[in-house]
C-alpha cells in the first residue's frame, strides 16, 4: 500500500483531485450558513460535550456549540482571509515590482535591498513583532501577513519585468504593430501566470497555517468566532476527556494544507517552475 501512495502523488491525477477538494472547500466556505446544521456561536450548556448524534454529527464542545458547524464556518474564515492576503499582496507586489523593474537604478536598488531584508528574516517573527506593536487581533494579523508576503511577489514581478524587457518576442510583437493590450494579453500574461499560480497556491497554504497558528497562540481570531486554530486552543483543556475537540480542527487544517502543497508541487512540476524553500 505504501508503494502505491507515491504513484498517486506523481500521477497526472493530482491536479484534478486537489482542484476538486479545493472547489468543495470553497463551496463550503461560501454556503456555510446554509450547510451548517446549527449556529456556530449559539451557546447551549444543556448540550455540552455531547457525543456525535444525528442532530450534532461531530458532537458539541464545552459550551454546547455544534463542532461541525464551527468547522464549516472556520473554512469560510481561513480560506476567505487567505484569499484576501493573497490578492492584496499580489497587487502590492505587482505595483512595487513592476515599478522597481521599469525604473531601475537607485530606486530599484533601495526597494530590492529592503525586500532582501524582509525575506532574510523569519516571517513569523516579523508578524509577531508587528502584532506586538499593534496588539492582538485578526485585523492586525492579516495586515502583518500582507506586509510580509508582498515582498516575495514584488521580487518575482521585478524579475519578470527585467527578463521580459530583454525578450525579442516582445520587441517583435511591437514592431509588427500589436497594440499594448494585445502584447499584455498574448505575450506577458502567459509568461507571468504559471509561476504566479504555483507561488500563490503554496502561499495560500502558508497563510492558512499562519492564521491558525496566531489564533492558536491567542493573538489572532478572538473567541467566540469559529476558527480552526482557536478551536484547538479552546479544545486543549479537554484533551483528557474529549480529545476530539482538538482532533477535528487539526485534521481539517492538515487536509487543507496538504491539498494546497500537493497542488502547488504538481503545478510547479507541470510548468517547470522552481520553488523556493
Amino acid at each position, binding site marked *: 500500500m*505504501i*508503494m502505491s*501512495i*507515491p504513484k498517486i*502523488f506523481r500521477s497526472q491525477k493530482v491536479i484534478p483531485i486537489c482542484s476538486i477538494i479545493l472547489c468543495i472547500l470553497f463551496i463550503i466556505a461560501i454556503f456555510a450558513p446554509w450547510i451548517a446544521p446549527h449556529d456556530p456561536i449559539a451557546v447551549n450548556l444543556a448540550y455540552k460535550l455531547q457525543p456525535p448524534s444525528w442532530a450534532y454529527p461531530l458532537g458539541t464542545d464545552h459550551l454546547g456549540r455544534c463542532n461541525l458547524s464551527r468547522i464549516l464556518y472556520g473554512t469560510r474564515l481561513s480560506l476567505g482571509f487567505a484569499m484576501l492576503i493573497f490578492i492584496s499582496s499580489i497587487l502590492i507586489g505587482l505595483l512595487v515590482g513592476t515599478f522597481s523593474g521599469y525604473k531601475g537604478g537607485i530606486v530599484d536598488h533601495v526597494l530590492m535591498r529592503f525586500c532582501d*531584508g524582509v525575506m*532574510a*528574516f*523569519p516571517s*513569523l*517573527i516579523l508578524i*509577531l*513583532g508587528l*502584532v*506586538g*506593536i*499593534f*496588539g*492582538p487581533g485578526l485585523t492586525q494579523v492579516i495586515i502583518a501577513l500582507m506586509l510580509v508576503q508582498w515582498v516575495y511577489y514584488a521580487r518575482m514581478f521585478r524579475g519578470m519585468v527585467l527578463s521580459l524587457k530583454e525578450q525579442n518576442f516582445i520587441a517583435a510583437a511591437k514592431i509588427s504593430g500589436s497594440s499594448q493590450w494585445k502584447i499584455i494579453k498574448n505575450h506577458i500574461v502567459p509568461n507571468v501566470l504559471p509561476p504566479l499560480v504555483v507561488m500563490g497556491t503554496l502561499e495560500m*497554504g502558508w497563510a492558512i*497555517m499562519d492564521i*491558525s*497558528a496566531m489564533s*492558536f*497562540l*491567542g*493573538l489572532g481570531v478572538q473567541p467566540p468566532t469559529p476558527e480552526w*486554530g482557536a478551536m*484547538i486552543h479552546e479544545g*486543549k483543556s479537554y*484533551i*483528557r476527556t474529549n*480529545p476530539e475537540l*482538538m*482532533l477535528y*480542527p*487539526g485534521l481539517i*487544517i*492538515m487536509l487543507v*494544507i*496538504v491539498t494546497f*502543497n*500537493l497542488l502547488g508541487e504538481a503545478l510547479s512540476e507541470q510548468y517547470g517552475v522552481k520553488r523556493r*524553500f
Partner: protein
Amino acid sequence: MGTYIFKRLISIIPVFLLAALLTTGMIHLSPVDPAEAYLAAAHIQPTDEILEQKRQEFGLDQPFFNQYINSIMKICQLDFGISYVSNKQVWDEVISRIPVTIQLALGSILIAVLISIPLGFLAGVKKNSLIDHFSRILSFLGASIPSFWLGYLFIFFFSVKLDLFPVEGVGTWQHLVLPSVTLALPLIAIYTRLLRASVLENLQQPYVLFARTRGINERTIMAKHVLRIAISPMITGLGMNLGKLLTGTIIVEAVFSWPGFGRYFIEAIFNRDIPVIQCYVLIAAILFIVSNLIVDLIQMYIDPRISRKEGHQQ
C-alpha cells in the same frame, strides 16, 4: 579566508543598525503610548503628570534621531530597558529563560540531523525503494502538519494514553522528548528532502563515474565522496532554518508550557511589555545573521571549493 570572514563580520553592522532602527521606530508606529502601556502594565492609575514624567524617563520627548542613537548605545551595553511588568532588567529576565530554549532547540536539531542524514542519504542512493517512498511521505507530512496540533497529538498518545512522558514542564530528559520531536519534524522534512535531491544530483557527476572506473568500492565512494559533498546544501538549509526553529520554539513552548524565551515573548505581547518585544526582535535578528555566518564557515571547511569561488568573485 581571513579577509572573507572579516568582510562577513563587517556586513553584520548595517543589518544591526537597521534592526535597531526598526525596533526604535516600533514605538512610534504603535497606537499605544509606551508611557500609558507602562502604567497599565504596572497597574498605576494614569494622570497627565505621571504620563509626562514617564515620557521624559523613556526619552520620548527627544528628537527621533537622538532616541535612535541612545538606543544603539544602550543595546551595545546589553541594556534593553526595564520590563514594564516585572520592573527588572529585560536582559536579566531573558538570560534566565534562554538556557531552556537552547536546550529545546539543540535537542530538536540533534534529532533532525540524526534522522534526516541517514534517511535522506539512503533515499537518494536507493531511489524509488521503500525507504525513498517513506522519506518522501515523511517530508510531505512534516511540511503540512501544524506543529501546535502535532504537539497535542503527541501529548494525547504518549502522555495521556500511554503515560510514557510527562505532559508539560521541564527538568528531566523525558520532559525534553516530546517537545524536541514536535519541533524537529518540520526540520526533518526539509533536510531529508534537501539531502535526497543533493545526493541524486551528485550521483550524476563525472567524479562518481571516475571513482568507479578506478575500482574504488561503492561504499567508499558513497561515504567519502558523495555524502561529503552532498551534505553541503543541507548545512545551508540548517542555517536558513534557524529562524524557523526560533518561531517553532514559540509555538512548541506554548503547547508544552515550556518556560523559555518564546513563551516570555508571547506573554510580553499580551502585556504590551514593549522593551521585551523589542529585545526579542533584536536578538532574533542578530541570532539569524550570526548563525548564517557560522554556517558559511562550516561549509567552507567541508567544501574548500566555496572559499575559492568567493575569492574569484571579489
